[in-house]
């Protein structure tokens, strides 16, 4: 063992000196570390604590439960049901295809939805949950829940989704909700944050869209602790939101579903209005569609089918559809003439089947002519020449003004989509819009509801109600919001001469009760419920040809308006059957059936019908009972 020994002391001195220098340096450095630690943990602690909280605390929105919609009797028309969906967080799933394949073995995945989900999964940030299956059954959800260990990143979730138990019955009135899209942005004054909830549902059509602000409610918030992947570890604080306001409609589900069934197979619209309150108790556009399809986003083939259907199921024909009112406009013309004093009720006009005006020949629908026609007969038998004469005497301005007083050519303020104003033409209107002078032929055409005159089924019902009551009855579809009754549309007396109105009403009574009336075939036998009405047939093409020999698109529109009971008007009804042919044949029977259904509140007894029709009516009632929509699920849920 080698021992240097002699220079040991010298060596030790050197080592000690340098060892102390390094030890000192180390001590200094540790002091620095301690100071830095103190600076960060004491002086800057609050700042870092804030940052740590920002990291861990995430404020999540609690989507409010959307307000429900009820019919006038408290039956549920739009409700929220728990819906289960399956989500995947791509980051946690690892091998996505493998996980999806395993999931597909447990639950049936819709191929279209899966395709969309896979697109979303590719685009989404790794920590965002993507929905792969929506509206999954409870059984499927439990199967997934049990198997979560084998399905990394897959989570079953529960939420609320909109459901319309009456399916197509209310599609055009109540409308539907759908996932928020950018194009909804300008329409809604929504708090931005709510709309950031993925697939947040907003009203897209009908009352769902118009009353969006009341129905939506206010979002609640919860403060949750999240981990670095954004997964919620626990809830720290919860502030419940405010559910949306419930809305009650004036519509009656029983009648609404009857009317829907009665119109099925036609491209048609009907409106039933309460003459007392202005309540729209039924308002149907046919054919309809199932609004539930739109709730989670309608599939492309389904939507294409709706778009390409020549009967146009999507628009609400009852308020959006405007048609030449045809002969149903004759009450307007005659009332304008009576009020202006340009015709005496007893006065007769000779109808040779046509009238020469300004070198042009205007035909009556009855080529052979009606002979001498007074007011009563002109309405009952719908003589056109009588009204040509009235138009020449009264002038378009008077007629147009009367049309507006009766609710035509004005936009009724209803919370529905695309309520049409229709058109009651004036000379000024033609100059402004068409850039041409009004000619006398225009007045002649307008007098029988042809030419420029346009009205929606809703407006025709309003017109009929106003004729029946003499009051300016206004339509309403919302009975109450949050239990607060909306003002009724009872309306004030219009100041019309009661004698003139009575003349017109009697003539309308004759239309469906006099053997020579155009709607005699659709009369009501029950004395208490006798109805007064008016047929209309509006031309779609110019040449007069037999309806059965032309394609559907070129046939005449069939119209009928009526009110009942005659003595104490309760309901005003309008029916428009697009390209249905003649009003007496296509529209009047429908209107009669609807009227009886509304008055009885159920299937009317056969005794109310003319005896020779009863057999046919019975089988029709049975058939309609079979096809009428029964609300899905538990329809007994009352407000």
């Amino acid at each position, binding site marked *: *063992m080698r*021992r*240097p*020994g002699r*220079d*040991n002391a*010298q*060596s*030790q001195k*050197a*080592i*000690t000196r*340098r*060892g*102390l220098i*390094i*030890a000192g340096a*180390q*001590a200094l*450095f*540790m002091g620095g*570390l*301690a100071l*830095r*630690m*103190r600076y*960060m*943990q*004491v002086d*800057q*602690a609050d*700042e*870092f*604590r804030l*940052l*740590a909280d920002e*990291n*861990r605390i995430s404020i999540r929105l609690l989507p409010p439960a959307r307000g429900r919609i009820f019919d006038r009797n408290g039956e549920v028309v739009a409700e929220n049901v728990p819906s289960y969906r399956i989500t995947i967080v791509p980051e946690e799933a690892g091998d996505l295809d493998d996980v999806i394949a395993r999931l597909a073995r447990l639950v049936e995945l819709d191929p279209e939805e899966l395709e969309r989900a896979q697109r979303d999964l590719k685009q989404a940030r790794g920590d965002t949950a993507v929905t792969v299956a929506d509206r999954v059954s409870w059984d499927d959800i439990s199967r997934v829940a049990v198997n979560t260990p084998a399905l990394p990143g897959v989570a079953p979730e529960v939420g609320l989704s909109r459901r319309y138990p009456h399916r197509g019955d209310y599609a055009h009135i109540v409308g539907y909700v759908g996932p928020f899209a950018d194009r909804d942005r300008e329409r809604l004054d929504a708090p931005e944050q709510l709309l950031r909830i993925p697939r947040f549902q907003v009203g897209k059509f009908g009352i769902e869209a118009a009353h969006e602000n009341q129905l939506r409610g206010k979002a609640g918030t919860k403060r949750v*602790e*999240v*981990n*670095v*992947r954004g997964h919620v*570890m626990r809830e720290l604080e919860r502030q419940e939101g405010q559910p949306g306001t419930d809305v009650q409609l004036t519509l009656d589900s029983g009648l609404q579903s009857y009317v829907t069934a009665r119109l099925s197979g036609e491209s048609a619209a009907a409106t039933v209005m309460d003459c007392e309150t202005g309540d729209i108790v039924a308002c149907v556009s046919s054919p309809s569609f199932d609004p539930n399809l739109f709730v989670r986003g309608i599939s492309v083939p389904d939507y294409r089918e709706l778009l390409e259907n020549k009967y146009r199921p999507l628009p609400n024909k009852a308020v959006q559809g405007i048609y030449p009112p045809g002969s149903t406009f004759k009450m307007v013309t005659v009332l304008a003439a009576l009020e202006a004093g340009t015709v005496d009720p007893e006065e007769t006009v000779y109808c040779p089947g046509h009238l020469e005006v300004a070198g042009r020949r205007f035909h009556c629908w009855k080529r052979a002519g009606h002979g001498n026609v007074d007011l009563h007969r002109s309405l009952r038998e719908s003589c056109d020449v009588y009204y040509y004469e009235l138009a020449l005497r009264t002038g378009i301005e008077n007629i147009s003004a009367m049309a507006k007083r009766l609710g035509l050519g004005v936009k009724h303020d209803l919370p529905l989509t695309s309520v049409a104003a229709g058109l009651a033409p004036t000379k000024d209107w033609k100059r402004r819009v068409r850039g041409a002078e009004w000619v006398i032929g225009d007045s002649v055409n307008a007098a029988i509801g042809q030419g420029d005159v346009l009205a929606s089924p809703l407006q025709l019902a309003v017109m009929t109600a106003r004729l029946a009551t003499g009051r300016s009855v206004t339509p309403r579809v919302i009975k109450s919001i949050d239990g607060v009754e909306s003002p009724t549309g009872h309306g004030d007396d219009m100041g019309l001469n009661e004698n003139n109105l009575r003349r017109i009403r009697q003539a309308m009574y004759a239309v469906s009760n006099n053997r020579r009336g155009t709607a005699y075939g659709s009369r009501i036998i029950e004395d208490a419920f006798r109805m007064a009405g008016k047929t209309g047939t509006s031309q779609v093409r110019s040449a007069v040809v037999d309806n059965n020999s032309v394609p559907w698109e070129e046939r005449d529109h069939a119209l009928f308006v009526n009110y009942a009971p005659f003595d104490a008007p309760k309901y005003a009804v309008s029916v428009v059957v697009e390209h249905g042919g003649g009003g007496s044949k296509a529209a009047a029977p429908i209107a009669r059936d609807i009227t009886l259904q509304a008055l009885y509140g159920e299937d009317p007894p056969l005794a109310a019908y003319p005896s020779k029709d009863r057999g046919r009516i019975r089988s029709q009632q049975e058939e309609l009972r079979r096809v009428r929509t029964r609300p899905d699920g538990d329809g007994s849920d009352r407000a």
Partner: protein
Amino acid sequence: MSYLEYTVKTTPTGLRKVLYLNWPLAILLTAVASVGFLMLYSVSGGSFSPWAEPQMKRYALGFAVMFIVGLVPIWFWRNMAGVAYGLSVLLLLVVEFFGTSAGGSQRWIDLGFMRLQPSELMKISLVLFLAAYYDWLPLKKKSHPLWVLIPVLIILLPAGLVFAQPDLGTALLLIFAGATMMFFAGVHWAYFAVVISMGVGLVVAVFQSRGTSWQILKNYQYDRLDIFLDPSSDPLDTGYHITQSKIALGSGGWTGKGFMQGTQSRLNFLPEKHTDFIFTTLAEEFGFVGGFSLLLLYALILLFCISTALANRDRFSSLMTLGIATTFFLFFAVNMSMVMGMAPVVGVPLPLVSYGGSAMLILMLGFGFVQSAHIHKPR
């Protein structure tokens, strides 16, 4: 009295050596390791698995290694220094040429029960070998250029191999530890002054030339340097880690959020929370009080090592103990600076606390040498 007589008479033998063990040092080491167990228990959410339990077993093994190594006479270890150095270089060469795997750089050799990192082993071997070299070198030759060049080569050979792995952090640690050893041994001031001023000059030149016509490095190299020096400038990866680490540490405050209540670590905002960033969890959950206490424990370990080194009249023992202490210091100083955002992110664990087998065992081996020097010091 000859040295031989002296040793025979007073150096403890047999089991009596146990009494002469540096017990305060052993207790301090155990205390620091216990802090580690506690934190590993916490970061796994209040569970001994997967980290706390294996760590305890390894510490037990490490303690045994220290104990056994400590009982072996120090001259034996001095004679083994060359073998250890040679073996370490050999292992570095093995991982360099045969250890590559598909994943890129592989720095370890799988021994079955543990993964041995030759670069870790080299930290101790280098200290041992340099101490032996200066013990052998006559004092008057220590500042002769030739005898200065040899230890420089001894240092640069393994440093170069480690750098090639690539592991810049460990390579710099080796160079720094080696240079400190040379400083302890008494190599002339001037060498250090020259090297330091040249280094400073180079760094200044590199940064001064940026954007001028005589720019030394390429632009992308400067970008890398920027991120290396200031990780928070890179919002992803290391920058994100450092930011989260600082948030965790700072939000601990005076007394911390409480045991197992550290939100940053519990919610996984902290990266590598059981290894390189474990100090952050300590500072988050026990605040300044906890962090400072650990720093104090480290300081005490250094104090005991340095005091026994300076009291030891055996040149090899002194140098070796100072070297181990310095290596130990470099470990925790770099790690703490890193998690506080004061130093670049290099993969240096917190000694005795971070989860990891080979680092702990090798460190305990080093403390074994310190114990051996302490027990067998000339009396």
